[in-house]
């Protein structure tokens, strides 16, 4: 590519920059407005309280949701749908070999399970092979 003299700007740079900034602003506004949300499932109060507990106990240090989070424990995206709730309550309250015990009130444990149940309603953490398009990308349907 040619050198540009000090003080001059190539026209293609200004045009590309303008396009990039416009696309970024449009994309950001669309995301904030919820145009790309996919599935919209409103949470109940228990799920919202469960989310606060999830953050207060830093559960994300060890567990993932949709593959995002720590690596010590399992991904919990679909655990509320796939596992027995009483077993989950026992896990949370008494812990296991590597998971510490969390002596929480029953209502708090139920709120955590409500939060995980809400998360799991949005989809599966693992993408099934049939959703992989021939171009290498995924085509994930927006309805469960």
């Amino acid at each position, binding site marked *: 590519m040619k050198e540009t003299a000090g003080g001059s700007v190539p026209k293609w740079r200004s045009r590309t920059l303008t396009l990039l900034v416009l696309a970024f602003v449009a994309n950001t506004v669309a995301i*904030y407005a919820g145009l790309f949300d*996919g599935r919209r499932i409103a949470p109940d109060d228990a799920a919202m309280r469960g989310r606060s507990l999830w953050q207060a106990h830093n559960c994300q240090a060890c567990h993932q949701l949709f593959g995002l989070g720590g690596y010590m424990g399992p991904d919990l995206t679909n655990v509320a749908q796939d596992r027995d709730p009483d077993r989950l309550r026992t896990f949370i309250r008494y812990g296991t070999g590597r998971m510490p015990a969390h002596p929480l009130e029953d209502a708090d444990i139920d709120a955590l399970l409500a939060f995980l149940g809400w998360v799991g309603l949005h989809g599966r953490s693992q993408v099934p092979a049939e959703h992989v398009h021939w171009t290498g990308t995924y085509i994930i349907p927006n309805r469960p």
Partner: protein
Amino acid sequence: MNGPVRTLAVLALVLLMAALLFGLLAGIAFVLPQTPPWLDFTRLRPLHTTTALFWIVTGAVAVMLASRTDAVGKEPHLPLLHGFLILWAGSLAIVLVSYLVGQFGGREYWEFPPWLALPIGLAWVMLLIDHARALRGRGQGAPMYLWMWTTGLIFFLFTFVEQNLWLLPVIRSSYLRDLTVQWKSNGSMVGAWNQLIYGASLYLAARVPGNEALARSGKAHAFWLLGLANLMFNWGHHLYNAPTAGWLRHAAYAISMAEWLILFDILRDLRRSQAGSTGTTFSQRCLRAAGHWVLLNLILALLMSVPAINRYTHGTHITVAHAMGATIGINTFILLGCIAHWSGFDGARTGRWPRVGLRIAVIALHVLWSALIVAGVLKGWRSMGLGMTDHAEVMRPVMSVLVVFVLAGAAVAGGLMLVVIPLMRQVVIARQEAPTEPRVSA
């Protein structure tokens, strides 16, 4: 390096040492079959990630300020910089104490109670005002490193604010919107600090006699725009498996594939440089090591950015390998090289240990990186390929590979300490003459 810039560089190096210590302890906690209470992983992980993140950002600000002072011939505005330093370091101290006492409330990488975002954001605003003052009167034709620093500073603030939008009910009440905003901001923030760091390394390269035109070349303009596009849109790979709108996934995939251009350019430069002189100062050794890791990490990133491959790598230790390769192999080596340059470490009598330490760190990082990839391949294959659902069973063979990762991590930490301790001594005693003439014109 003078006054608050030198203090920032010392703070950054202290944070690097803390990140190495917490990382090592977290690694030990991870591989032990049962964790003693004093090795609480839920506290060690945020202590490690936060000190590592703040090492990179603080170090990036320090080398940006040292480079900018040299480039534009104007010292930073002292009251603004003191304000930044007090708010930044003070908030960070409270953040670390809150982790130590188990007070969380935030999100991944920003686990501290949300009110602490206010002083951190305010500190960054002061830095931005200082930057605007320093660059006042410079037009669009300024060299690319000034554009990169400006881009990095603006986008860091933007993404930091965005990271806290979950506090608004309208974002929080939609799980997928919240997840999208969270990883949009996290992904773009990495691009923002990369702009600061790559700008500093471009300035060092352009400072070599004969290279002055480098920062104004058409290639510099093109790669800055490509970096900006990546910063703005490449975060989507974090969300490939979340059922968000397909558009986000496809755009991120397309933008990621544009990085092949960078890879081809690196390979072409590599072939050219094999015949030429490569330099032997400590800074040059660090930058050369970083160049090597850009190549390795870019290949890994390109593969992970293909959704069909990401299906096996997402949520595995391959993601950690990519993060470690980027934060240690690229960011840390560039920052150490820049700090060495601006503190006069290159010309000082430092003995052979820093060079030995750097070599140990580079070799051990290869082992660490490879162990994480093997661990990730095993986990990905057992969970996706074999369809195993029991986490303990999936992880059984992975844990022994992670022991190698922890041992290599100890060697990386040891090697880097051999660099950081004499470098910090040099930064403390370094004096830089006040600039008189700007090196660049607008």
